[in-house]
Every structure is written in structure tokens, then in C-alpha cells.
């Protein structure tokens, strides 16, 4: 049983009170005295040469303070890619400069080439209309295969649209080819992993404030990752010394990856603030978000599964084209490679895996990590082709997976794609899922659907992912230009309450509630006496932010280490107070006790002593009680799951409805089951959105046809049932102190193939020979597949 409000308790969230009463403070809610407003002028064409930009009319408009164009930033740096990937031939990837504002050329619809600063947003908007840009439109490069075949380059200076051609693991290529050539059965599937827009409900926003007195800058911004933003602006883009730049990410209304990255608008408001001598605020509207936020997914893949006649897997081989858009966003080169190729063995003992990924520049918005980031693409490829193979072999899809699962006693297990999975029990997850689903009763449910004129299908799926990103030494070898540790400072105040400064940023994950649960549990104190400070680079030692399900596994571990240091020091102080040796002092339930006696002091008494060090061994112990720890994980963590989905398909219209959805996950040890369930619900529904509803559509000229909620279909409440979720009894992570694996992405990774497998099963049950439909499975696509089949 969890302690009251400690580890494992479903404590309700303390942050909810401000959000439920309208007291949240998001960037757009902040108004700074004297602030001016920025509006960006964005390209309406996908590819064009900027011949001239006449800003004179705009500059004379009422309220206008300044107008910026790309010319103003030619002497500063570009926004860099965070991972260097080498091609199979050893050539480093192509890295064209990504400027603050487009200069020379515009490269996608929405590419900002000018910005207007005015007294009010409306005045800036009016003036932006008066900027006259002579942009010579060129043919756009949109389709990836066309981009690789032609000589129309997104970046003329690199002379190719291919960023890199990556092989994983290149040394396994020949063996995999040979295994597939000789295999008794090979299943081949060509599929599209549809391009998505993350669509955090809060649009991006930034406020830049330059303080001439201190020659320093403050950036308040919608970020998952304020320290990285500071680092990128300082070291690469504007060259502001890190000690002169504070980045604050206040309440942030969701991220899902899109707010990991540094964007040009953040640099612009800082530079503009210095120029006009006023704080400068920018708030995106939704269309701007669609046009300029980093998008996700967008892979075209051919996957092959070779197996024995009995279903034993021999090899997976895949070839993928991955779109990076017009510029390299910060993690865009890691997402389709090390977050994708390394997972292409899935949950299986398959001995041969080879993955080839070519990344392609196109005249579209940059593409980067979106919830799951590479792992949904890997899982989708694997789990769709396995289902197809099961059908071809006449095997039950659950049995085929079980036959090839890594078994519980095989962990730690090094997969054929090179990762060492530390723990897991895939059969146990499948057992649990089958029990909840009650497969035996499925045929009854199918008959009931058929009696209503509907087709019913059951889709299942297994996934494993790598998160808790990431061991710095390993990712350094793989091309990362940053370390991926995290940090925490635990400050015990004199009166015994605590402020805990953490590098992870909470934008919905509930850190303000869960992190105190952990510290309070370790110290045996009331969680209400612990507060978290996050999102402010001036208050926090350092941090690599929140993404890759890393907050608890990495930053939480740093917090545990810092708390252990607190306990160790407090024990020494207590020993002095108790006139005992530190080795003879036990700490439990908030009390330091001399072993075998009833002599004790409380944690609060020790804290007070640390700050009022009278009769204190100052020669041995410093006053104060504050400790910092940096934690660098020894390995990734490996959450896994078994999912099931039941759908009904209306054969008259092709409409799919989700009737049941079951998610059984192994996240290791769970700190707050209520919050973890919420993470699964949200992830699963984003995956259902990908499978059935969401698609980012550019026409052949590069116009984004899906640039509003009228056109881009977000999941709504009436598209969904309740989701059955189970995550108890997981196998703990073996290498971090909490045994936690991370729960932010599993839902979005596990759900898309589950849904598609269910729809294919439904169509097959209706006698339709449909083996694949590309996502999203809209009524039009399903109907067409049924009627052309």
C-alpha cells in the first residue's frame, strides 16, 4: 500500500485548482508593462526567390516601431540540428542553414520572411498587410520520391534533396538480405505513416524583454525545454551569453513534441526588444501554428517480414523515405533514425533486422518528433506486417506474436536492432489483455454487430519502445550534439518545507503533484510541504526538458539522487544532535533515531539546525541543507504493451466506429496511477486520431489544405468510447532508482496499428479481400477499399 500521498498514491493534482479557476498563467496571458506586439509575415508560396521586400509603407503606418526582414539576421547564426547523422557511405548529413527569417528564398508556405513590431497587435497586423514582397514563385517540391528523382532543390547550395541515406545496422545488411532471399515465407507491405500536426491546444507565444541596464534578456515562451532554448539561442543563433539570457516557460498548454524546439520567432522577439527598447510579445494564431509548428511522422515505408512456415520470424527489412520538410528542426534527424530504426526488432527474438532510411527535404513545414517520435512509425510497420503474415500463414495473430516474443527469462535481451532491453514480460501483458477483452465472447459481439448490418473486427498489437531519453555516452556515439541527463536541486528551507528545482517541464504531466509525492515519501514528510519549481533557467541548475517520456525516469532519478544526498547530510547533523555516530542513526518516517534507543530527532528539527548552526560541527559539516544531482541514465527504458481494439464498420458508408479499446502497459513502477491512466487515455486517442481522422495535406503546389480545425480532423469526444487501461504489476526498470520506465508515449505508439488491424479484420470478416488501407481510415478510403477489392 502506498503511504498517504506517497509513491503509488492516486493523489489528485494540486495544479488543477489554478487551471479550473482561470488562474493559469500561460505565455499569452502575460502582459508586460510597455509591451509592443509582433506579427510575422509569412510566405504564401511554397518555393520562391525573394527579389525585394519594400517595407516603407508598413514603416509609416500608425503605431509601427520597427520592421525586420531576413537581411537583419544575415550576420547571426542559424537554428541547428541536434543530431549529426552519417550516411551509409560515411558522408555527414546535409545541414543547410535555418535562419531567423527567410533570406534569399522562401521554402514553405508559412516560412516567415518579415516581422512588424507595433504598439498594438492590430496595428502590427494592419502594417503587415502593407509590406510589399516581390517573390518569384518557383515549382514546389512536395512528394518525396519526386524530390529525390529531380533536380529542383529546396536548398540550391547542397545540390540534392537527400539529407542522408542511413543504414541500421549496416553490418547486418548482407545477412538480412540473404536470410530473406532464402526464407520459406516473406510478407511485404508498403505503407504510409501519415503526416500529423501535434496541435497542442495552446498556440505558440513568446515575449522578449531586453534590459539595457544589465545588458540582459528575458524570454518567456511556450517551451517544453527552456534550457535547451537558452543554449541554442546563446551558442548558435544570437550569441547572447547564457548568463545574460533567462528563459521562462510558464504554464504551457500542451506540447506533444512541438514545443521541444527553438523557433525563429523566439530569437526575433529578443532582437526586436533590444532594437525598440520595449518588451515585444507575439502570439500565434491557429493557422500560423498549422503552417509553422514542427509536424510529425510522414514516412513512406516498405517493410518485409521473413518467416518459417511455422511462423518463426527470420528477418525484418525496411526501406523508408522520411520527410524532414524545408529545414532541419532540432531533433528531426534523430527521430526517423535512432528513435525508429533501433526499435525495428519489436518485442521479438527475430535474429536479422536491417533498416534503411533516406531523409528528404521538401517545400513543406519542418517535420520533427511528435508524441512517440519514430517509435510509432516502427511499431506501425512491424505490427501491421505481422498481422498480414498471420493471415497469410493462417495463424492466430496473438499466437504468432507469442511464438516470437522475447520471454520473461530472456531479459536483459539484446535485440537484433542493437538495443539492450532491460526488463519486460510480453506474454503477461498479452494474457492480461486477452482476459480484459474476453476474446471468447468476441464472436458473440461480432454476431450482434452483424445483426445490425455492421462488420465487427478485433485488432491486437504488441509494442516495445525506448524512452527515458537518454544515456549521454551512447547518444554521443550515435551523433547527438547534446547530453541527455537531467538535474534537480532539493532545497530544504530552515522551517522544514522544501523547494525542489527540476529540469523537467510540466505542461500537463502533473509533475507539481507527482514529484512532491516522491520526495515526501523518501523523507517521511507531508507532500504538501514540498513544492516544485520548473521552467525557469534562472532558478534551476540545468535541464534537458520534457519529451521522450523522460521526466520521471531521468529528472525524477536526479531528484531521488539529490534527496539521498539530503538524507546523508541530515543524518550527520542528526548524529551530532543525538551525540551518536552517523552509522548508528536510522532514518524512517521522518525521524532520525539512534539504533536500539528511543532517542530521536525529526527531519524538521534537523533542517532548523542546518540553518541555525549553533552547537554545530562546522569544521566537519557545512551549514544549510541543499543538494543538487545530475543524473545520466545507464540505458534507455523500455515500456511495452499489449493493446486491443474492436471496431464496427458500416459497409454502406465505410465509417469506422471504435467500440472498445483496451490498453495493457508495462511502465515499470508507477508513481501515481490516476495520472498514468490519463497519459494513456490521451496517447491512445492521439493514436486513434492518426488511424482514423488526422491527415496533413499539401497540394502539388505546396499549399497546406488542412490548416484549420475546419479541415484537419481532431478527435472529438463523440468519436470515442471509454478506454480500458491497466498498468499494474509492471516489471521495474532495472537501472534507475525509481524502477520507472515512462508513460507519456506508449498510448500513441501502441494504438494506430491496433485500430488498423481491427478494421482489416472487420473487412475480412465481411468477405472483403482487403489487406491494407493507409491511415487515416476515413469513410471514403474504407468504402473505396471495400468496393474496389
Amino acid at each position, binding site marked *: 500500500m502506498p503511504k498517504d500521498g506517497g509513491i503509488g498514491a492516486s493523489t489528485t493534482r494540486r495544479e488543477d485548482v489554478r487551471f479550473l479557476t*482561470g488562474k493559469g498563467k500561460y505565455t499569452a496571458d502575460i502582459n508586460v508593462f510597455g509591451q509592443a506586439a509582433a506579427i510575422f509575415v509569412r510566405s504564401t508560396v511554397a518555393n520562391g526567390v525573394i527579389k525585394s521586400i519594400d517595407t516603407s509603407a508598413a514603416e509609416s503606418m500608425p503605431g509601427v516601431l520597427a520592421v525586420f526582414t531576413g537581411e537583419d539576421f544575415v550576420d547571426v547564426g542559424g537554428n541547428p540540428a541536434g543530431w549529426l547523422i552519417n550516411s551509409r557511405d560515411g558522408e555527414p548529413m546535409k545541414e543547410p542553414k535555418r535562419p531567423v527569417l527567410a533570406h534569399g528564398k522562401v521554402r514553405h508556405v508559412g516560412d516567415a520572411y518579415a516581422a512588424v513590431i507595433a504598439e498594438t497587435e492590430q496595428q502590427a497586423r494592419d502594417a503587415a498587410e502593407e509590406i510589399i514582397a516581390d517573390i518569384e514563385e518557383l515549382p514546389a517540391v512536395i512528394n518525396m520520391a519526386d524530390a529525390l528523382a529531380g533536380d529542383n532543390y529546396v536548398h540550391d547550395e547542397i545540390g540534392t534533396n537527400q539529407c542522408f541515406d542511413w543504414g541500421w545496422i549496416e553490418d547486418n545488411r548482407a545477412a538480412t538480405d540473404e536470410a530473406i532471399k532464402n526464407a520459406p515465407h516473406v510478407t511485404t507491405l508498403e505503407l504510409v505513416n501519415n503526416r500529423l500536426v501535434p496541435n497542442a491546444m495552446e498556440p505558440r507565444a513568446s515575449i522578449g524583454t531586453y534590459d539595457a541596464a544589465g545588458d540582459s534578456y528575458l524570454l518567456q515562451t511556450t517551451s517544453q525545454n527552456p534550457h535547451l532554448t537558452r543554449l541554442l539561442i546563446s551558442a548558435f543563433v544570437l550569441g547572447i551569453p547564457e548568463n545574460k539570457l533567462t528563459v521562462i516557460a510558464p504554464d504551457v*498548454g500542451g506540447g506533444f513534441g512541438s514545443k521541444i524546439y527553438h523557433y525563429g520567432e523566439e530569437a526575433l522577439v529578443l532582437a526586436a526588444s533590444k532594437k525598440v527598447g520595449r518588451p515585444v510579445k507575439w502570439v500565434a494564431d491557429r493557422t500560423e501554428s498549422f503552417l509553422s509548428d514542427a509536424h510529425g511522422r510522414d514516412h513512406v515505408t516498405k517493410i518485409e517480414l521473413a518467416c518459417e512456415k511455422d511462423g518463426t520470424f527470420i528477418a525484418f527489412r525496411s526501406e523508408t523515405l522520411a520527410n524532414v520538410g524545408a529545414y532541419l528542426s532540432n531533433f528531426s534527424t534523430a527521430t526517423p533514425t535512432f528513435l525508429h530504426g533501433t526499435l525495428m526488432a519489436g518485442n521479438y527474438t527475430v535474429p536479422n533486422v536491417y533498416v534503411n532510411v533516406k531523409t528528404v527535404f521538401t517545400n513543406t513545414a519542418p517535420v520533427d518528433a511528435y508524441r512517440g517520435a519514430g517509435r510509432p512509425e516502427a511499431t506501425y510497420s512491424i505490427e501491421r506486417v505481422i498481422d498480414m503474415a498471420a493471415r497469410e500463414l493462417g495463424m492466430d495473430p496473438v499466437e504468432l506474436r507469442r511464438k516470437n516474443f522475447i520471454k520473461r527469462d530472456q531479459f536483459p535481451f539484446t535485440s537484433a536492432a542493437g538495443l539492450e532491453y532491460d526488463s519486460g514480460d510480453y506474454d503477461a501483458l498479452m494474457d492480461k489483455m486477452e482476459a480484459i477483452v474476453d476474446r471468447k465472447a468476441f464472436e458473440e459481439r461480432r454476431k450482434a454487430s452483424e445483426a445490425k448490418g455492421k462488420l465487427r473486427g478485433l485488432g491486437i498489437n504488441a509494442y516495445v519502445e525506448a524512452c527515458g531519453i537518454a544515456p549521454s555516452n551512447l547518444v554521443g556515439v550515435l551523433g547527438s550534439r547534446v547530453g541527455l541527463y537531467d538535474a534537480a536541486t532539493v532545497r530544504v528551507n530552515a522551517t522544514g518545507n522544501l523547494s525542489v528545482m527540476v529540469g523537467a517541464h510540466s505542461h500537463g504531466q502533473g509533475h507539481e503533484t507527482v514529484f512532491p509525492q516522491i520526495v515526501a515519501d523518501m523523507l517521511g514528510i507531508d507532500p504538501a510541504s514540498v513544492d516544485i519549481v520548473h521552467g525557469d533557467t534562472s532558478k534551476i541548475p540545468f535541464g534537458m526538458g520534457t519529451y521522450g517520456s523522460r521526466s520521471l525516469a531521468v529528472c525524477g532519478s536526479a531528484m531521488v539522487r539529490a534527496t539521498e544526498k539530503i538524507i546523508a547530510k541530515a543524518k550527520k547533523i542528526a548524529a551530532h544532535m543525538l551525540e551518536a555516530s552517523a552509522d548508528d542513526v536510522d532514518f524512517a518516517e521522518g525521524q532520525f533515531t539512534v539504533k536500539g534507543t528511543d532517542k530521536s530527532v525529526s527531519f524538521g528539527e534537523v533542517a532548523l539546525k542546518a540553518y541555525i548552526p549553533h552547537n554545530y560541527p562546522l569544521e566537519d559539516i557545512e551549514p544549510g541543507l541543499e543538494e543538487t544531482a545530475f543524473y545520466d541514465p545507464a540505458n534507455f527504458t523500455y515500456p511495452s504493451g499489449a493493446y486491443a481494439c474492436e471496431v464496427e464498420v458500416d459497409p454502406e458508408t465505410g465509417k469506422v466506429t471504435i467500440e472498445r479499446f483496451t490498453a495493457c502497459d508495462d511502465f515499470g513502477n508507477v508513481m501515481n496511477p490516476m495520472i498514468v491512466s490519463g497519459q494513456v487515455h490521451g496517447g491512445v486517442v492521439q493514436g486513434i486520431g492518426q488511424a482514423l481522422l488526422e491527415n496533413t495535406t499539401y497540394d502539388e503546389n505546396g499549399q497546406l489544405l488542412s490548416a484549420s480545425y475546419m479541415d484537419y480532423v481532431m478527435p472529438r469526444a463523440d468519436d*470515442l468510447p471509454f478506454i480500458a487501461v491497466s498498468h499494474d504489476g509492471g516489471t521495474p526498470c532495472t537501472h534507475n532508482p525509481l524502477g520507472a520506465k515512462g508513460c507519456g508515449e506508449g498510448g500513441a505508439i501502441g494504438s494506430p496499428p491496433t485500430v488498423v488491424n481491427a478494421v482489416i479484420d472487420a473487412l475480412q470478416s465481411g468477405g472483403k479481400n482487403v489487406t491494407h488501407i493507409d491511415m487515416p481510415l476515413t469513410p471514403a478510403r474504407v468504402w473505396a477499399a471495400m468496393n474496389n477489392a
Partner: protein
Amino acid sequence: MASVTMTVNGKSVSGEVEGRTLLSDFLRNDLHLTGTHVGCDTSQCGACVIHVNGAAVKACTMFAVEADGTDVATIEGQANADGSLNVIQQAFQDHHGLQCGFCTPGMVMSAAALLKENPTPTEREVREYLEGNICRCTGYHNIVKAIMAASGQDVSAIAAE
């Protein structure tokens, strides 16, 4: 510029607005009631739902001048008189019906309008009523559950946590 006067959360307020000023902007910028959020430009997302003369309205679809003389309620006026969370707000906290909190004010205001119209809605009725409110975090599971709980229904049998 035009003068507007209205009652907001029980207090009379007035201001000078342009004809094009949206009610959402008037609330946020002139009255500093920033709990009403703006998440889209097409009246789709529902983060800005408020009540005007008792009816749920998307504040971004109304000009401030159109609200002249009306009685407006926003998220800032929903808590009980003693400052504690009202029944709906409390149910959202108890059932983890919010994550990032951005859509939450609109969800709470829509839920209040629903329960006034239909005091014990079915799951389907709740889901259909929320068609105009987008949430990207929760998958709606705990929002629907919270609203049903706020209506006094037993939600303990709803899918496992």
C-alpha cells in the same frame, strides 16, 4: 471606438472598443480575465466558451459591442462564494479531467451549460454536447467521467484506471 457596458461575473464593467474587437479579446485584454483562452481562429476549439445571458457562447464568435448590455459569466466567476471549487470544478479535479489546463475553462463552462439543460446526461449525451470543445491531452475519458460524476451519477463502473 464604441462604448460597451456589461455585467461580468456579477460586476458591472465598461470599456471603449473597436468595432472589430472580439468579446474574447475584450475579456482578456481589457478586463484581464485571461482564463478565457483562445485556441483557434475558426470557432472550433471551444477553449473560449463563456456564458452570455445564461447560454454557452464561444467568446471568439462575438464582437464585444454585441455583448453590450448582457450578463456574462466566465471561468473566473465559477467557484463557490468561499473560493472553493464548485461541483463541476471539483469533479474535474477528483477525476483528473484536465492535464495541461488550456481547454479546461471552456470545458467547465460547456459542462455547466449542459447540466443546466440536462441534469443527468448519459455518456452519449455528454460526448455529443462536447462536440464543440477540443481537448488534446485527456482523450476526453476523464472529462466525460467528471461531468457524469458532477451530475450525481455513479461513475465507479467506468473503465478501469
